[in-house]
């Protein structure tokens, strides 16, 4: 597939990294230095030019693209680029990134002339709401309209011995779930019945949302459900997170340092308590009992401030902290400092955009462990050799079918179940194997 990318920023980099193996990628950006850095690392064509210039787009060859992605950090550029690309390349799918939820709403209402709109803020908010739904998870992803969840857990001390330390054959799992992978150090293992989950492992579970919560309870019995959340930073990201969490009936308190912004958010969200405060004043933390919140989310603009505020919140007793790391590098620093989960908005945005680059049969893709593993949602071809085969007879080839979506509802297959033509399957695989797995199905 020919992919035309406008914007070589952090999102652009993440997209190129995921797509350059299998697709012909062309990148357009206004800055030569960024293009040079990109060309040095990946085999992609680069053009210097302006995404809002129709001539530059034409010169860079947007006409031949199958997929046009506008992912600069500026909404207006992306909108205009997406619009011109639609004129130049009539049959291409166009995807634009936006940081304004209003554009997402306009797009849903069919008012924007692009195929897909991806908002960093909303993606971040959804990622965080999934994490909050399964508090012990490091990372979660949903498939088949939320019926299937892929969850990555750290196995820590105190996890239930129903699942840890016993061969999987003898372990009692939550219903409707499967261990897709065990990650031990740098090694990933698609587990068989003889394998054992050990403390310190990282495991990937595919299952129903209920089973994901059950796993959470098994692996981290101390973490209850989250009902009371404090969000630091009421900017676009913080506001979007607050809205998504409120919709789920979670009570939200917001801390915002700008008075004007605090007022606006308080006016927009009547059911939240908004503080005009820095959030790092010990008296304030004590007075407002911030330490008693079930979780705190750090969504301020500055990663360093998020890190400091999170550390302080930990000191004051907040058990579960989620940091928004705007810079991909910060993710490691956050984890090192003990922030429970980090979310990189550009990363989740790139992930969302990459989904559109896959085979048209593929509905959704998730990337795990820094893009080493993929979860693919793919519809079975009529001619697939797997049709009619029982699961226990299938060869193990570095991939695992975690769930089947048949007639719109999700099934979690057992050894004697068979695949049928037209099934959608959700497959866990190493990223390098993904194209092979897709074509085999």
């Amino acid at each position, binding site marked *: 597939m020919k992919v035309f990318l406008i914007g070589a920023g952090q999102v652009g980099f993440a997209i190129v990294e995921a797509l350059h193996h299998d697709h012909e990628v062309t990148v357009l950006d206004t800055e030569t230095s960024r293009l040079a850095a990109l060309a040095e690392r990946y085999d992609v064509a680069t053009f210097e030019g302006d995404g809002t210039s129709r001539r530059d787009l034409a010169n860079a060859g947007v006409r031949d693209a199958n997929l046009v992605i506008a992912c600069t950090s500026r909404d207006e550029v992306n909108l205009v680029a997406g619009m011109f690309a639609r004129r130049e390349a009539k049959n291409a799918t166009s995807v634009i990134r936006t940081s304004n939820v209003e554009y997402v709403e306009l797009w849903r209402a069919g008012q924007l002339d692009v195929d897909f709109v991806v908002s960093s803020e909303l993606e971040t908010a959804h990622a965080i709401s999934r994490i909050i739904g399964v508090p012990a998870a490091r990372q979660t992803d949903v498939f088949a309209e939320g019926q299937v969840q892929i969850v990555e857990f750290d196995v820590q001390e105190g996890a239930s011995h129903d699942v840890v330390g016993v061969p999987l054959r003898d372990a009692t799992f939550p219903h409707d779930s499967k261990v897709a992978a065990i990650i031990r150090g740098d090694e990933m293992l698609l587990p068989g019945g003889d394998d054992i989950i050990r403390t310190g492992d990282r495991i990937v579970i595919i299952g129903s949302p209920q089973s994901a919560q059950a796993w959470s309870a098994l692996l981290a019995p101390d973490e209850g459900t989250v009902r009371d959340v404090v969000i630091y930073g009421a900017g676009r990201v913080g506001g979007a997170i607050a809205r998504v969490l409120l919709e789920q009936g979670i009570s939200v308190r917001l801390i*915002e340092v700008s*008075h004007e912004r*605090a*007022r606006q*958010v*308080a*006016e927009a969200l*009547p059911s939240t*308590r*908004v*503080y*005009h*405060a820095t959030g790092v004043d010990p008296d*304030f933390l004590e*007075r*407002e009992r911030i330490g008693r919140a079930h979780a705190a989310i750090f969504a301020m603009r500055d990663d360093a401030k998020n890190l400091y505020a999170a550390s302080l919140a930990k000191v004051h007793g907040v058990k579960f902290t989620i940091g928004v790391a705007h810079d991909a590098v910060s993710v490691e620093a956050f984890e090192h400092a003990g922030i429970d989960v980090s979310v990189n908005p550009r990363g989740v945005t790139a992930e969302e955009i990459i989904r559109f680059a896959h085979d048209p049969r593929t509905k959704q893709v998730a990337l795990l462990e820094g893009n080493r593993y993929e979860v693919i949602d793919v519809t079975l071809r009529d001619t697939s050799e797997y049709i009619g085969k029982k699961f226990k007879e299938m060869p193990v080839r570095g991939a695992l079918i975690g769930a089947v979506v048949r007639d719109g509802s999700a099934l979690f297959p057992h050894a004697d179940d068979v695949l049928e033509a037209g099934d959608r399957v959700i497959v866990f695989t190493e990223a390098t194997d993904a194209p092979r797995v897709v074509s085999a199905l």
Partner: protein
Amino acid sequence: MTIGEAVARRVRPKRRSAVDLKASSNLLGLLMKYLGLVVLFPIAVALWYGDPVWPFLATGGITSGLGLALERATAGAAPRVGVREGFLVVSATLLLTGAFASLPYLFVGGDQLSYPIDAYLEGMSAATTTGASVVTDFDELSRSLAMWRQFTQWLGGMGIIILAVAVLPRLRVGGRQMMESELPGPEVAQLPERIRQTARLLWGLYVGLTIVLVLALASLGWLGVDEEMTEYEAVAHAFTTVPTGGFSTRVNSIEAFSPAAQWIIALFMLLAGANFVLLYRGIVRRRPRVFARDEEFKLYLAIVVVASIVLTIQLWGYGIATGEEAIRAGVFQAISIITTTGYATTDFALWPVLSLMTLFALMFVGGSAGSTTGSIKVVRHLLVGKILRRELDQTVSPEVVMPIRLNRTPVDERTLRAIAAFILLYVGFWVVGASVIAIDSAIGDVPLGALDTLAVSATALGNGGPGFGITGPMASFAPLGDVSKVTMILLMWVGRLEIIPVVVLLTRHYWRL
């Protein structure tokens, strides 16, 4: 600025006024010119009853003539007025309307009304829809003069400025702020975009309500339910019910009429105490749900219900009245005082202190914003309550940001400050007014009790009407001294415009650039 410049500035002989007096006078002249025309109605009444026509002709002639002269004298003035001029025009218009209303009393008021201060008190009482009167012997008034009292109160109800905005094309620009000054209540609910439409809607509904009430009352007379309620009385009392004015043609006010008439009047006072924009949406547009959604309306009704019950219990308990009579007296008096109408179905001046205290407290309630009522208004009480609650919450959590909402919409902090300022000024004017009246009464040996003194000031400032004691609903304000009467006139003036538009005229900043 160099020292030389500073000195030059200091010694500059004359500062230019920031207010365009010429444009203000010109607009004022225009308003008076047209105001004089409304005497056509009393002239028709006078002709019908065979009363002399000349007092009304003279009143109209003088008003229109002066207006025309003022307009001519200031010809070439800027056609538009700004915010500063708006305050001046609104304040002056009300004073002049009061003077206009008092002219016939000067001519044919007889012993009761021809004394200028009494005449002006009566005129201002009409123009501000207060309903405080110096008349005791109603038989002495001619039919047409009695109707003039009622009619001028009706004119003052929805306001001359709003009428002018509705009718005169010239006020299409710059009329908004003047209209907001005249329309009771804080500017919390944004008026629809075009003020002219709003003004027409308000006056249209006002006229409509009046017509319905005339028909309702007159039909009592036609059906023989109420012999006293002639067509004349129906019109006269509709004229003072819908503007929540309170003037009556009878010395014993609404007591003169049947219980049915009293209930109907109570209902219309209640309606007139609601926000007219809300009434329009709910009744004319047939969306009754707007009433259930409006916080102010709900609180207004709740206050009326609670006050009615409290008064009824008191009257019944004291044995002043029982059964339907107690309920009727309780409900009627509660609505009459809350909506600052000032009608009475019984001489409440004779009630025990507890009931008087209840009525006194109700004087400070007022109706809704955008109604024809006076006093503080329910929405201000509501918002002050919310401000207080926020203050308490912020004492515990100083960092918490809590926008104050009215009907789910956040209210601007400036509006909230203006409301707090209004209430402080309101209390200030009331106390100062009461003090002046107390001193004047002491000097003039007027037998006014402590509560009565406080009530006179409150009822004038709140545009209520009667007070207690010698100024009760079946008595008059005639026994008060001249200083007290002038104080009342000022309080009525300030109260009708909700203080701030008048008080800004007293600030240095207003007059200087």
